[in-house]
């Protein structure tokens, strides 16, 4: 199975060349087009309870679609927001994804839900996060561009800009300056990342766009 990310960075989507017998797991509604040789079957991920948590708290669908190639064909997958898509090859490792980021994965990657904690909830990053574990490629998307940082000690990210992170990174909510300065300065709360590991960030935030749009609505 060959997969290529095209249309980067603004309107990135995933073009997957599948050979007979290939399987790819994708978020529902991610399919934009596909060859008639490919069949689609919705399945719950990791059982009913995990699927329920994933859909209620992970802002992902209750089901994921399994695309199987009955013959050679092409599958085009995309995400709802404009922005970049990136691929990561998990090798017996884990990646946490923020709600809504997941697009697709190879069958070797197991999808579950991990408790993110109240700090994450207060920081508007969700009470749960999607946990991808195993071996295989995973594709995830963002609103805006995606870039990564390898942090060693501490790194501060504005809420809504975090896309994915390794399990070795600890998240906590903090104010970038004092109480008054933080809110007057417009930054409000930020997410403080501690530890060693890679974090994936998006250059734009949807909540930022929503707040900006609201100023024209009222």
């Amino acid at each position: 199975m060959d997969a290529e990310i095209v249309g980067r960075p603004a309107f990135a989507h995933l073009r997957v060349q599948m050979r007979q017998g290939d399987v790819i797991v994708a978020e529902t509604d991610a399919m934009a087009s596909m060859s008639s040789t490919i069949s689609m079957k919705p399945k719950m991920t990791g059982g009913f309870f995990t699927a329920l948590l994933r859909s209620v708290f992970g802002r992902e669908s209750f089901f994921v679609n399994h695309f199987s190639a009955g013959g050679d064909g092409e599958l085009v997958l995309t995400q709802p927001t404009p922005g970049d898509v990136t691929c990561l090859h998990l090798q017996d490792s884990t990646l946490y994804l923020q709600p809504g980021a997941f697009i697709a994965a190879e069958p070797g990657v197991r999808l579950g839900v991990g408790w993110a904690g109240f700090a994450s909830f207060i920081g508007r990053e969700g009470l749960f996060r999607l946990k991808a574990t195993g071996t295989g490629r995973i594709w995830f998307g963002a609103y805006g561009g995606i870039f990564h940082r390898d942090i060693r000690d501490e790194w501060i990210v504005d809420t809504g800009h975090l896309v994915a992170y390794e399990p070795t990174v600890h998240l906590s909510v903090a104010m970038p300056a004092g109480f008054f300065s933080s809110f007057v300065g417009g930054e409000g709360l930020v997410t403080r990342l501690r530890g060693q590991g890679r974090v994936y960030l998006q250059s734009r935030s949807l909540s930022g766009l929503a707040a900006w749009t609201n100023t024209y609505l009222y």
Partner: protein
Amino acid sequence: MSWTLPPSNAMKASMTSSELFEGGVFEPNLPTGRSGARLHLDTAHLVAETPSGECLYLALDRCRLSLGGASGRMVFCRDDTLDLTLFSEAPGFLKALTECDVPTVQQAARSLVEDNRKHRRRTLRLLGLGLILAALVLFGLYQLAGSAASFAVSATPISIDARIGEIALSSMDLKGPRTNDRALTNAMTKIVDRLQPHAKLKDMTFSVTIVDASIVNAFCLPGGRIVVYTGLIRKAQKPEQVAAVLAHEIAHATLRHGLMGVLRSVGIVGSVQLLVGDVGGLAALAIELAQAGVLTSYSRSQEAEADHEGLRMMYEGHLEGRAMAEFFVLLREEQGDMPDELSWLASHPQLSDRVKAIEATWAERDPGLPAPLGIDWADVQAHAKDPGS
């Protein structure tokens, strides 16, 4: 790479723990600087085996332990001189470190176990505090909604009640044909005329609709629209029992319990809208709420309040208040015969408690000599069996 022991040394190292722990490794010389790995302990090393077959050894006597990661339970073992970090959050990994052969690591691991316990206790305390706070906030919001609804009810003109009742009555499925039987109408009018002067709201006018159906039920919609089923008239042994039921139902209307239900349903925003005179969506709302039974379903405390108020009206109207308790008992005795048709009973819970409360309230009063309603009840019942005859 400096951290990889020669195979001969590795062969010499005897394993102290055969247990394997899922985890990973950070090392600058690895292709991406990191890898997933399976960890195990030997006498002097923590060993990481990557999926690509590399073995990395971290000398335990140079190992610095810390806790962290996304879960807060990830154990990091770091050798600063080699820039090598092995990590795992697998269950039992920290315990295995407390049992290793190097005293400094043992001690550091025990200290982390203690930190872990403290962290867990703190999390539980915070969780408990959070739950208590959430419950308090919810309770506060509920109280606020209740106060807002009560305030909105007192500030809403009675004409709104009448309008809601009128729209609801015209849209409700009454489950039977309306009847204008003269004997039935006269009897019901006589009862309402006796009660009306003693109603709490003097401006509210009452009208009775009689429906020919075997349902033992009666209700009063907001604004004073009363519906009585012939099934209830047939069941009652004397007119005072019907008067007691109607007094109770009228009390619901004069205490504006139906309107309270409407305002609770539409919430604080809806209450404010109604207060400022926005009755545009009222028609649709009344139809919807009438169909959902909101206008005629009351809380236990509202039922008790209506019993009390109904008894007051009976007392002041010189009617035998015990008839209310009698009718409850009558319904309870016959409940087994026709459970589906006793909807008036079914919607009024804790009947025996209420009978006791009614008896107690009535015993406190000095009713004097009751004034009969002057209704030929046998004739009314005959008409209830065959309206229009």
